[in-house]
């Protein structure tokens, strides 16, 4: 429709319409522009501090790392949250329910314990926000990544006096290699990874000569258990094959380890479990099992009535060059009751409660100065046959510790693990 040349000026209605159109178009345009940029190329916020996507510093025992502080710890005079429900996120069967009950009674709170089946699952659920715990129990190789993603909050160290009062000094001053100055973590347990076996079916001398090969022994076909956790599984296979670096990225080494595990599962009828050592060895379902030292010590609580604890055996290399490590307790940033969480950490480092957790249930030794490793057997905490399960501070200097893997090395390990879980042609 034609307009008179005198009517070029827009009417108010036309102006509003066009302005309104522009007002709608602008955000849409920006949305389109955002959509046009390939996701992941613009810095989407992760990799916050410093090296965004660049080279990560991987913490190692000979390369300790001081993590950046991503905030302030809670104030020391924060009141304890009364009547709260403390969300604890931990492995199954890893804490003594009686000690938890004592904590609940002492502070007048309730504890809710969410479990994960292995560390990878635990981390994924925490990172995705599926669980929002107050307290979490990771392994040491995830700490710096969790800090980088702002998932952990720094600790108010004055609220955890037991750390310097009862724990090995190396954990607080200068602090552990993965967290110098113990800014985010306190240690929970220390443990080695070896081979548990039934002493009524395997002679001690046989165990001594075979070592890791106990798990690759046709005599025990169908009664072999191996950990359903990729770091531990591939780690032990690497060492058994002679590669003494449990953080290696070497393709040949990883492939050889993967082949060994497939052989264990297919040719020797092995099973991947997480409870093979502490629950199934005492029940007799398995004869040999990959085992953490604490698992086999705690196994005595699962023995059926009438079976002596002498049937439990544990092998670890005599020269102490084997897998060793520790677990930590941390407080995630999602904690609803951080003050109570600090009390929880302090509680489990207490020489009475922490000791009871270990001696009466867990089997996992805490790094307490109040515990003398030499007396653990005479005090009947650890059965005499499990003397190799005792962990001392010197063992950490010789042992092989697993740390964080870089993204591509981790992918290689996961690809190998994927292949193992796909089963192969039986």
């Amino acid at each position, binding site marked *: 429709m034609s307009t008179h040349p005198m009517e070029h000026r827009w009417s108010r209605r036309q102006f509003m319409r066009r302005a309104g159109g522009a007002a709608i178009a602008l955000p849409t345009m920006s949305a389109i522009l955002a959509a046009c940029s390939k996701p992941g190329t613009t810095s989407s916020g992760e990799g916050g501090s410093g090296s965004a996507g660049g080279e990560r510093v991987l913490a190692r025992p000979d390369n300790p790392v001081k993590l950046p502080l991503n905030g302030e710890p809670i104030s020391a005079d924060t009141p304890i949250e009364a009547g709260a429900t403390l*969300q604890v*996120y931990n492995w*199954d*069967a890893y804490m003594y*329910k*009686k000690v938890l*009950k004592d904590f609940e009674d002492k502070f007048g709170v309730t504890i*809710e*314990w*969410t*479990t994960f*089946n292995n560390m990878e699952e635990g981390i994924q659920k925490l990172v*995705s*926000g*599926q*669980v*929002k*715990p107050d307290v979490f129990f990771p392994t040491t190789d995830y700490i710096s990544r969790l800090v980088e993603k702002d998932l952990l909050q720094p600790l108010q160290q004055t609220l955890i006096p037991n750390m310097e009062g009862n724990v090995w000094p190396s954990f607080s001053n200068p602090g552990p290699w993965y967290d110098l100055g113990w800014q985010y973590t306190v240690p929970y347990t220390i443990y080695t990874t070896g081979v548990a076996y039934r002493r009524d079916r395997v002679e001690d001398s046989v165990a001594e000569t075979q070592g890791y090969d106990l798990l690759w022994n046709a005599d025990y076909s169908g009664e072999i258990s191996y950990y359903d956790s990729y770091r531990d599984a591939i780690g032990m296979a690497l060492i058994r094959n002679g590669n003494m670096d449990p953080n290696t990225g070497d393709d040949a080494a990883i492939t050889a380890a993967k082949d060994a595990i497939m052989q264990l599962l297919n040719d020797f009828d092995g099973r991947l*479990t*997480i*409870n093979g050592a*502490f*629950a*199934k060895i005492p*029940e007799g379902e398995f004869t040999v099992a990959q085992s953490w030292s604490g698992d086999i010590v705690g196994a005595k609580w*699962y023995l*059926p*009535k009438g079976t002596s604890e002498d049937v439990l055996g544990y092998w670890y290399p005599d020269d102490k060059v084997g897998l060793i490590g520790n677990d930590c307790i941390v407080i995630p940033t999602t904690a609803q009751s951080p003050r109570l969480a600090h009390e929880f950490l302090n509680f489990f480092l207490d020489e009475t409660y922490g000791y009871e957790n270990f001696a009466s249930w867990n089997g996992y030794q805490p790094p307490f100065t109040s515990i003398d490793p030499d007396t653990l057997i005479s005090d009947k905490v650890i059965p005499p046959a499990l003397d190799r399960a005792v962990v001392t501070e010197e063992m950490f200097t010789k042992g092989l510790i697993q740390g964080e893997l870089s993204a591509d090395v981790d992918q290689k390990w996961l690809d190998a693990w994927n292949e193992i879980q796909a089963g192969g042609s039986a």
Partner: protein
Amino acid sequence: MSDVVLSPPSTAARSGSWLTRWRRNPWRKPRILQAVTIGYLLWSLIPVVIAVIFSFNAGRSRSTWQGFSMRWWTGDPFDSLFHDPSLRTAMLQTFRLSFITVLIAVPLGTAFAIGIDRWHGRPARPANFVMLLSFVVPEMILGVSLFLLFTNMLKNLVPLGTPAQILGLATFQMSYPVIIVRARLLSIGPEYEEAAMDLGAKPGQSIRRVLLPLLSPAILASVAVTFADSVDDFVIVRYLSGPANSEPLSVKIYSAARSSPTPAVNAAATVMLLATMAMIIVGYLIYRRYAKGTGDAGDMASFTQL
């Protein structure tokens, strides 16, 4: 056609050995089938009975009987059903999920079925297709898809845990009421409502006072089926579970079975079993009381329509 005709059965039955006669007798008792059926029923139900009995086992084992004890029900101060809060929470969660799912899925599904049955427009067919698709799709696919949805697209809207589980369950279960109610609608036909409207009822009234009562056996059957299926459900609720208090009993049984179960798990499963049976019996009695005369074996047919 002619090859079917043989000698009349009566003479055939009298000739030959008793085995041949038995085989040829059309009125014989089906011993083999009977044996198979009884064998199947035993095989189907005895393991569950044994699992219930083992909840009273004195030891930790669920496969070797070690004597009778109430240890796992009330005795053990930390691990028994009575004292262990995690098992009780799991049972409560199962009930909570199932009840709320029924409250969502049955009304929406029933309304959907009524609408689809009467609506002759073009968009009706794809809507119906999608609903039926949700019935046949393997639960694994739906479970993983919903998990990816709630952890990515709807990440901050719907947290994993009870809200996500309810949404997922209702989605998966909605097709059951649709199918059951639709089957019943097919046998009812539109005559009753039209008669009501001829007599002066408004459309809303005719639905409320004529159609729904006629549908009540199907609706009741939907409630029962949806409830039972939600109690059983495992795949979807496991993927969509969050912290420990959102894990229903099916997930707890699965985790326990993969690690180290105690007979307390048997005890919890027994309680669920009794509760579900009680609900079924109550539902059946309500049906008997209120649907006298309207349904024949209609409810049975509803189940077999699937």
